[in-house]
């Protein structure tokens, strides 16, 4: 066994342990808070599989997470820590809504234009912290988080004053044209074309990061910007480019989610997919091909929690706690370090000198 396969073994074991611990934790917490733990646990874990509709819920829930996680992956790969995927996603929703309501277009063209608009809106949002850093070395972490709030209230302003349904008592936009909606692809569920777009994006981004020149540049810049500059790459521009593309992906995700799942804009605050996307991206070890699996797992937990909240006495907030713990565990790189070291020692002392 060489060092590379040891790393792979440890990585997959780590993932498995994170999943198992997460599930154990769910059970323990349920046991503590519930009077009918059997019912709660089974509705949490098995509930999501009890009907086609619920399985569909998992897939639908995974779609926005895939997009935001891809955006996070791209940003992290370039060595940046912009948190803009949240804002890009939300402004993407807004862009798709505007096109969906205001532009009368034929059916196939309409969603395409709406999605492109969503992506471009997201890209513009992501470009702002990137350029602030390029020009004035403003930390993208700070500017992106603050920008997320600006975007949230800007979007709410647009809906409230320009696209609001006058009849509705609560905040809701006008209905989008039917021609803009994304078609459902599995009947009996709400699983829409967006799932396929999401999976396609995973493949494309994997290819982009690992198989193209620009992807190679991004990985070089992300790993050691001094080195990439030294070999003649304009590191700062590559970082900006990666963030803009990431913003496009997140914005596109917002558009897909909106056109696939909603007919009106009803959010009163940013939905938080960008934040969950960070957990998904880390769980997928910043690899676009693994992103769908991580997204489906997180979506499964969310669907399970929803069912549990409805059919037992445990509240859905409990699951938010569990998700936080999972994120901490993913970030804890030292997990299994001892075992890894023992394997490597064994490997090395048995004469496998590199």
């Amino acid at each position, binding site marked *: 066994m060489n060092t*590379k396969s*040891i790393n792979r073994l440890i990585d997959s074991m780590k993932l498995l342990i994170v999943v198992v611990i997460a599930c154990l934790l769910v059970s323990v917490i349920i046991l503590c808070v519930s009077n009918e733990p059997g019912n709660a646990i089974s509705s949490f874990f098995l509930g999501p599989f009890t009907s086609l509709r619920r399985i569909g819920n998992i897939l639908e829930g995974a779609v926005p997470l895939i997009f935001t996680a891809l955006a996070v992956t791209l940003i992290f790969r370039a060595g940046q820590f912009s948190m803009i995927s949240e804002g890009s996603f939300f402004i993407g929703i807004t862009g798709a809504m505007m096109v969906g309501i205001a532009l009368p277009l034929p059916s196939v063209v309409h969603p395409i234009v709406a999605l492109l608009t969503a992506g471009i809106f997201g890209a513009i949002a992501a470009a702002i912290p990137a350029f602030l850093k390029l020009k004035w070395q403003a930390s993208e972490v700070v500017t992106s988080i603050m920008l997320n709030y600006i975007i949230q209230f800007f979007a709410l302003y647009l809906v409230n004053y320009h696209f609001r349904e006058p009849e509705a008592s609560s905040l809701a936009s006008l209905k989008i044209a039917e021609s803009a909606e994304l078609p459902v692809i599995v009947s009996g569920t709400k699983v829409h074309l967006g799932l396929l777009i999401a999976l396609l994006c995973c493949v494309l981004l994997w290819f982009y990061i690992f198989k193209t020149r620009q992807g190679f540049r991004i990985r*070089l810049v992300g*790993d*050691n910007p*001094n080195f990439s500059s030294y070999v003649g790459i304009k590191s700062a521009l590559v970082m900006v480019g990666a963030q803009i593309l990431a913003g496009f992906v997140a914005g596109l995700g917002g558009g897909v989610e909106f056109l696939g799942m909603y007919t009106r804009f009803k959010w009163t605050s940013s939905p938080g997919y960008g934040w969950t996307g960070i957990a998904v991206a880390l769980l997928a070890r910043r690899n676009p091909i693994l992103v769908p699996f991580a997204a489906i797992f997180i979506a499964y937990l969310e669907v399970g929690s929803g069912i549990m909240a409805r059919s037992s006495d445990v509240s859905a907030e409990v699951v938010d706690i569990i998700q936080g713990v999972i994120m901490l565990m993913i970030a804890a790189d030292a997990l299994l370090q001892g075992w890894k*070291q023992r394997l490597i*020692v064994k490997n090395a*002392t048995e004469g496998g000198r*590199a």
Partner: protein
Amino acid sequence: MKNITKVYPNGVVANRDVTFEVNTGEIHALSGENGAGKTTLMKILFGEEKPTSGSILIGGKEVDIRNPQDALGLGIGMVHQHFMLVPSLTVTENVILGIEKRKGLGIDYRSAEKLVGDMGRKYNMYLDPKTKVRDLSVGQKQKLEILKILIRGARILILDEPTAVLTPQETGELFAELKNLRDQGFTIIFISHKLDEIRELCDRITIIRHGETKGVFGLEGITDEELSQRMIGRDVQLTVEKPECRRGGAVLSAKEVVVSGDGDKPLLDRISFTLHSGEILGIAGVEGNGQSQLVDAITGIGPYDGGEILFSDSTIRQGDIRRIRKSGMGYIPEDRMTLGISPSLSVTENMIADKIDDPRFFSKGGFIDNGGIDAFSRQMIDDYAILCQNGDVSISSLSGGNIQKVVLAREMSSNPKLIIANQPTRGVDVGATEFIRRKLVAMRDSGCAVLLVSSDLNELLGLSDRLLVMYGGRFAACFSSLAGVDGQTLGRYMLGLDKQDEDEISRSAM
């Protein structure tokens, strides 16, 4: 230290069943090639690394050293290869950092200063307690490091390649101080692979090779050849055969180059020289006399404020690295870990990082061509004798010498007209050193121009066709021929004790 084994998380076995023994009151050399495991062994003794197995005994008693505080408590102190000092603080503040004595709410500076002064005088290493560390010379900083651990109560001193950064004169001074310490009953472990220094200073030597002990010898009864054979397992020809220099046209010329820096005194003060194809131009100098600024300016990484640098008939500007590389400049940087490689990418990816426009590796549409890349990588690994399982392993798993060979392979495979080699063999084992030097000479013979910046005087004297000496941001000397030049002479110019006539320098530097 008994049966010490250390395996690093990346799978490298640094020490394999090493037993190491030092007597009180001796200067003991710990020697071996770079990457042999000397530093690791000492870091274990100093509590900075945990051994995978094995035990440490002091005065016959087994001890458990978990961190440097434990080690210092047992009287073990270490001076690292790279100094661990705070430049903006004074000598005294550096010494007492972490062990400050309080006086009321503040720190008792007066008694601390007195202590530093007294200790300095006692051990013949006096430094002005109130000087800021950034104003000290390298040799003085080293004294300060030693003083620091003496004041912390060390009786066993570990010095990790202390002479690497010193001029011959400073080295002589250091040796006198160390002998003085030994006579006062201190024990010194001297890590080095410079045989002449070891002979001058040490009583006994332990040799480590590939992480294993190759024996302990008294220095009286063993010849240099025997020692070097034990260290590297074969005879190494340390002087490289060099055919006559065939000098061609000018490749790089610097005219009155100025780098101002932040202070009053410019870091580079109107430097002019010309480098021709087919020659190796050496630059000697104690570190910090403007060499880094010069190299940064030439390679486009750093700025220059006045004058002009011309390479292949066009002016070099900061940040224009891509164009500079395209017109044929290769650069082997001084600090390969932060500038020369991308640590988590593979050996192959590191080798093609500067060739992303090469159609062999990336197709027209910008897609990776794995076939071309793999073939190239295998070829390079063969040509440069890079020791690795294959090109796909992470470059960080390689030893220092092999990482440097990857850098060399990358820079030399892009058909350069000019190679800037900044400390190309620093921290590299003897075998790789020889290889790198041969390659540099081979490049020169094929018509490439080489600018060699080095702190290894033997390397400069052995490889250079012409040699410049830098002092205080200017050239202190220029030798058009190296016949009759030796390390002592260079040392005097490097320390600013001697200086050639300006006109003479500018004539021979052209």
